[in-house]
């Protein structure tokens, strides 16, 4: 089993972006030294209390300079907000400057203000998404493009550089809605799931659908990798855990509510069932439910049990620890929890 660390990087009024970035780079360096397999960086826009990483590939480039082995993934680049050719060039660049450690995580996007800020329609959906992935893979693997799509027609140019990993970096697709789980399976890519966002039951059902579609699409189900992102907090002091986490998880929930009840979100939910569903799910998000359903919290022994429990539900190949959901935990608290996890929890699964 593999383990990662995940960053969404909220920044409250009393925090500074510089310090939040510096902590993230330092923690990635620590994760590399502790033997974590990957660091995953979100791409999110326009809501600083939710996230200040609109440009995860820049942050990853800085992390590449200060780490040796850890893989550098996006979780996720929001495909509809990018030009696919530029994204292909950027992932290739990260792959080169990290010595072949790039992981391409992508998603369709579920936050309506993102689309309004970039002047992009949310309705174009899966066909465009599918075309963009095919275009990116072609850009990585062919000397000269000969691409005739519905949205893009590109001929007689080739990108430089090509990625270092051959044929190309691994592709992971994030899913929250049922149709996306199907799509990722039938296309044969790896799957990223965050039960805090998708909900446990839909995520479990989605993972099942994903594996069925993999097999139906003629892909080897054993090669489709499932990566599950969960808030993780480890401490030897049993009573400390929930008290420490309450503030930061509540801060996360509050920022989600602000974002998903924005005028842009309400407008989108009125016409887009996928968004309405996400909005309804997130409206119910509360501290008790997150703690009970979606987290790995406790002493090292309790965390081992908890991962075994999730493994029974998901049968995942990777768990990615969201060690500072909400971003309110001090840097030293996060590093202590990461160290305990690496020393006392991870070895039980290797």
């Amino acid at each position, binding site marked *: 089993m593999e383990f990662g660390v995940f960053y969404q990087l909220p*920044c409250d009024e009393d925090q500074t*972006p*510089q310090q939040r*970035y510096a902590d993230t*780079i330092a923690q990635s360096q620590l994760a590399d030294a502790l033997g974590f397999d990957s660091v995953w960086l979100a791409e999110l*826009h*326009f*809501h*600083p209390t939710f996230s*200040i*990483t*609109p*440009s995860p*590939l*820049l*942050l990853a*480039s*800085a*992390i*590449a*300079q*200060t780490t040796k082995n850890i893989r550098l993934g996006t979780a996720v680049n929001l495909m509809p*907000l*990018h*030009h696919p*050719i*530029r994204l292909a*060039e*950027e992932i290739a*660049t*990260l792959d*080169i*400057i990290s*010595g072949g450690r790039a992981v391409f995580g992508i998603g369709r996007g579920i936050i309506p*203000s993102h689309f*309004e*800020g*970039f*002047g992009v329609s949310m309705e174009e959906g899966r066909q465009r998404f599918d075309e963009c992935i095919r275009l990116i893979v072609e850009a990585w693997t062919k000397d000269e*493009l000969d691409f005739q799509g519905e949205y*893009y*027609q*590109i001929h*007689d*140019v*080739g*990108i*430089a*550089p*090509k990625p*270092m990993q051959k044929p190309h970096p691994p592709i992971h697709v994030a899913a929250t809605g049922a149709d996306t789980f199907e799509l990722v399976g039938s296309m044969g890519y790896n799957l990223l799931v965050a039960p805090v966002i998708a909900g446990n039951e839909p995520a479990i059902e989605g993972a099942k659908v994903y594996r069925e579609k993999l097999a139906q699409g003629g892909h080897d189900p054993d090669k489709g990798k499932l990566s599950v992102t969960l808030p993780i907090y480890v401490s030897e002091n049993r009573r400390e855990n929930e008290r420490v986490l309450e503030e930061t998880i509540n801060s996360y929930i509050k920022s989600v509510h602000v974002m998903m009840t924005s005028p*842009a979100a309400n407008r989108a939910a009125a016409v887009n069932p996928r968004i309405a569903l996400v909005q309804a799910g997130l409206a119910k998000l509360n501290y008790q439910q997150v703690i009970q359903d979606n987290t790995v919290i406790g002493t090292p022994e309790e965390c081992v049990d908890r991962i075994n429990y999730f493994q029974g539900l998901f049968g995942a190949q990777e768990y990615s620890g969201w060690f500072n959901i909400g971003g309110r935990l001090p840097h030293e608290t996060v590093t202590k929890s990461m160290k305990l996890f690496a020393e006392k929890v991870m070895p039980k699964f290797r």
Partner: protein
Amino acid sequence: MQFGVFYQLPCGEEQSVSARYDDTIAQARLADELGFDNVWLAELHFNKRFSIMPAPLMVGSAIAAATQKIKIGTAVNLVPLHHPIRLAEETATLDLLSHGRAVFGIGRGSNPRHFLGYNLDMEEGRDSFQEAVDLIIKAWTSDEVTHKGKYFQVGGVSVEPKPQQKPHPPIYVAANSPDTFGLVGRMGHSVLVAPMISTIEGAQAGLKEFRRNQSDGQVTGKVNINVPIFVAENRKKALDGFEGSINNYLGTLRAASHGRGMARANMLNYDLVDADFAAIGDPEECADKLRQIKQMYGADEFMCWFNTGGMVPGDEVSKSMRLFAEKVIPQFR
């Protein structure tokens, strides 16, 4: 007088892509130690022999993590190939990651292949430049951005994070065509000039337009001149050391068979580059040449291109950079 180092990052068939990137980051680190003011990184696409750097802001982030003081600029981001909101976000991110060292160098783009590869119309792209730059400045300086323009529509969002430098990182615009020089003057930004491409007369006439078009009559922006440089113990060593690489640069431009660069490369050869546009020689000869170039254009800054063509081995580039920093730069400070 400020001195920067410039990278366009060509990669010949016998060179390794990784090694070219590693050399660039190592040389940026050296430039930082030697007291150069800037590292400038080009954005170019779809032609490995000419450049393998489509994403200079990512290389800038890697350099930020490896350096302390040197400013990190793009020379240039091709604005029509970017969404302005994303470019604002990325430059702000670089500014924060580097603790206030980002420099926003931009251009309108003149290579048809770039637009072809991005499936974009070149005339529209060039026309949208000013709207895009205004929108980027708005994104950096306003809490909430609403924009209904000819080319871009943005519906009430807070573009975050904001850059560390207030009100925003310095803006430099590359100018080749006469109308662009005037536009940069009117906008009040600094100007990046490559006389080797725009010709001596073109650069001088353009700078006249740049100065004439300043809105308040006074020049607020800087004039930055790009100069290929090779410093060695004596002129023969320097001339021999640079010849193959400059010829590779010119040959690559000619082979590209399109754009302004090709037309220009057909008029150039190594002797002309040496005589009119480059500083090649021992430290004294290079200093004299730079004094001459400074006077010709009224330069405030130099963008030193130590590896035009990319064929000079890394250790020779470092040696030339060291000699330049030790014996030439002090004469201008």
